[in-house]
């Protein structure tokens, strides 16, 4: 049962107060995009066994979406951060690399 800190409330809340939202940092492809890009955007997922960036909504709390960097093999959480970003912030990346030196963002 996961425990995540909502970056907006600053409260550490358990999974049952949140709703999961799948892969984070997806780029939306709309009209005019290629079938490939659109398929990738909607369906194709890295589904990493390891470092994973994902969306959560503090549904039973402030109602805000936030993002988390989590290891899907150990469930270690490297940090949570604002949903208003297109890529993981530097400090999160540092935290991850501190634990996994050979890891680098795609």
């Amino acid at each position, binding site marked *: 049962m996961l425990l995540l800190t909502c970056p907006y409330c600053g409260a550490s809340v358990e999974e049952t107060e949140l709703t999961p939202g799948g892969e984070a940092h997806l780029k939306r492809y*709309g*009209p005019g995009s290629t079938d490939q890009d659109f398929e990738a955007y909607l369906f194709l997922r890295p589904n990493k066994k390891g470092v994973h960036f994902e969306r959560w909504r503090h549904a039973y709390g402030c109602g805000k979406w936030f993002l988390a960097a989590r290891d899907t093999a150990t469930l*270690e959480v490297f940090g949570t951060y604002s949903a208003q970003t297109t890529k993981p912030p530097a400090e999160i990346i540092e935290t991850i690399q501190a634990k996994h030196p050979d890891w680098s963002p795609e």
Partner: protein
Amino acid sequence: MTTRLAQGGLRIDRQKQIEFTFNGKRMTGFEGDTLASALLANGQKIVGRSFKYHRPRGVVTSGAEEPNALVNLGEKGRFEPNQRATTTEIFDGLSATSQNHWPSLDWDIGEVNALAARFLPAGFYYKTFIHPRPFWKHVFEPFIRQSAGLGKAPHPEDRDEDRYEHFYAHVDLVVAGAGVAGLQAALVAARAGLQVLVCEQAPRIGGRLPVDGAEIDGLSASDWIAKAADELSGYPNVELRPRTQVSGVYDHGYVLAYERLADHAPDADTPRHRLWRIRARHVIAATGALERPLSFPGNDKPGVMLASAVRDYVVDYGVSVGDRTVVVTNNDDAYRTAIAIKSAGLDVPCIVDARATAAGLLVEEARALGITVKTGTAIAGVKGLRGVVAVQLCAQAGEGSVTEEIVCDAVAMSGGWSPVVHLWSHCGGKLTWDADQAFFRPDHARPPTDHNGAGFVTCLGAADGALQLQDTVANADSVARAVVAELGGSAADAGSPLSVAARPEAPLEPIWVMPQGAGVKKRSKMWLDFQNDVKVSDVQLAAREGFESVEHTKRYTTLGMATDQGKLSNINGLAILAQSLNENIPRVGTTTFRPPYTPISMGAIAGEARGEIFQPLRRTPIHAWHDDQAAYWEPVGHWRRPYCYPRDGESHSGAVTREINATRSSLGLLDASTLGKIIVKGPDAGRFMDMLYTNMMSSLKPGRCRYGLMCSENGFLIDDGVVARLDDDTFLVHTTTGGADRIHGWMEDWLQCEWWDWEVFTVNVTEQWAQIAVVGPNARALLDKLGSDTDLSAEALPFMAWTDAKIGGFYARVFRISFSGELSFEVAVPASQGRAFWDALHAEGAEFNATAYGTEALHVMRAEKGFIMIGDETDGTVIPQDLGLHWAISKKKEDYLGKRAQSRSHMTDPDRWQLVGLETLDGSVLPDGSYALAEGENANGQGNTQGRVTSTYYSPTLDRGIAMGLVLHGPDRMGEVLTFNTTKKIVKGEKPKTVKAKIVSPVFYDPEGEKQNV
């Protein structure tokens, strides 16, 4: 003969006698007895039957690891199978029956299995019962099922009389186990100021200490425990819970503990069980160690027990398990049992010690008491059918030729101890094999890790492999200090280490089979898993057949899969497996440890959620009125809406017809409060609305309404409803009942995660309003009669307009929208006035025969009008284009959610089925979900289809069946007749029954809309 001793028994209060029954026989025990100790005290040696061979079974342990002594407990609403006698405290009126036998415990037909045992080795059922085919289901399986299973099934109509609850706790530290190690750890943490929750599964704290005895800090065991408990109770930051088992450790420091509040006092008006849902920064598992049996022929017979258990029964309960008890061991600790028995005035014919030599203080003490010690010796066989009458001895080194026979009525065995590492392992903690002490203990380098990637479970004391008291205490003290320091407590205040006067013990010698050279005949009489009847020979068979992984062996033999989860059998079993594979034990490894540590009640898991509060029930402000009218309810999400309001003797369909006729002919009232209402406001609201809806919303004028469609990004219709523009930068979005929360979340998702620079706020105001549809030719008349401060005439408030108004004194928002095709006003008033407004409408509406109608009438009327219904015409695979809703899909907008998806090849395919109306030729009602047949079969031999019914009703208005459906090229085939299947069951040889229906326009009623636009 097992019996109660004249004196002794630390746990029992001889002043307080308790009466109970076993298999109908009245028995007595003392307060503090467990059912097991009480049964033994009453001479009840056989307490149950084994799973597979139905062998007679007696009590073998004194705790949570008990595989044999399981009973049906209680009656009716308090009946419970498979209750462990060794952890069941007795109470007045307790009634228990033994399990898994017919006709009786002593004479069990199933025992033939035992005679046939040789034909029923591990996994025999995989190799037979193959022919003839039908026999498995009809002959073999029923037989196997009957003889399998353990306790009785509760009666289907009995209802649990007890209540249950949960409790959430957040602490620095959970200490599982209040033995000497756990207590010391708790003291250290408490003194350092940490918040500590100590959970002890037993009713008494102290663990093994009271029975094993020792001097700690110059105090007797009991005094030291009392002192520790007393100090702990003084700390506000410490909570100590007896009868509370830590049942599982989960990710991110989540811990479940199972508190048994009323099992020992069923008449107390408390919840029976309380499930603790704990968040702990750290977990200390001070869970001790469990003794292992020895694998000698006949080790499963009633009267053969763990040495520690025999000791517990004598010392804790004042119960003798036999007049003459042979102790068989490979370690010193078992000598404590011999000494305890002897000190109780009972006889120990000899101690059979498999080790070549036995020295050390305990051994000396035993010898000093005149007990013969036979070293290098083993048990070759146990005589007696339903109980022990003698044991045959042999050399441990040999193959088992009997050297002598010793008359005895009990055997106390000890094969060494295994640390209880379950809580360490539940969440992935790894183990290491300690060859000297022959057990797995926690590998400190590989603990289970939490959300910070840090280890969060620590075993200490015996659970960490420190078995001998002086080691236990030293280990507990130092490890606890380290944990406390890590958690930010100051070890300085932790108090001084304990001084222990205990007797050092000689090392044990690992003994996996006894005697060492036993042949297959003997090995097939050595039990590993007493409950599931798994023997040494079975594990060896598994290895022989290639089930080399310990996980395969487990599943092939069912070793460790019984209700005790192999607490006694697993280590012995995998040692045997390793031997047979010529592997070393650590390479074979253990099976996965899974929660719960011991089984927990389903009731506790569900907690308070039963009956009325099984699930939240959402009620509109008018709910009570519906209830008073005996509405027939239809669940919609967590809401409940009236399906119809049957009157006395009226059928549901009769009621629906009446409601529709009343509405179409005069006046109907619908509680539409459950409809979603979301406010969308801001400079970018129009732009946002245009992205949400397939049609153009930004162009909507304030004061007007527009029907709109929402699609998922994958192109499929997800919701529809009427949008009202409140002012230039504010929209009111109506969603379906099921859609309100979903769509609001959906909006927030896009606003927060994609278009966060757009200035838009949303609020879900669904429940702020009671919304009532006033429908029918007399709708306006009623509102006028109530009196409105605003002109509601067709001119002032035309179809698809809205206005604020004061109606009959109620502040209201009035929408000229219609889902029925009639003149209709949807009137929203604040929820707090909803019921009053509803009552007013009925009062004033009486003269118009105002009739409340339910969801079914609503559905029929919308179908008569050809309006689609989300969930009927749509099912997650339908796009607006399929439903002839092109008019609602803006061509001007270059983007909206779902637009890109709708341009994929399969979505633009002209062969997609399209919405049409359907009329059976004979006027009958098409069956729900029936399919339109097409010629031939597909590549997989399935009948081809060319369409399906999406909704179908009897229309009272037209007095015939009407339906809508999706049909291949439907709109181009008006008038064509299709064949629909009406059979829902295929009967071999029979061709499906069918009915013919004509393709027509989906609008069956008032196509020009003359009625709604008046």
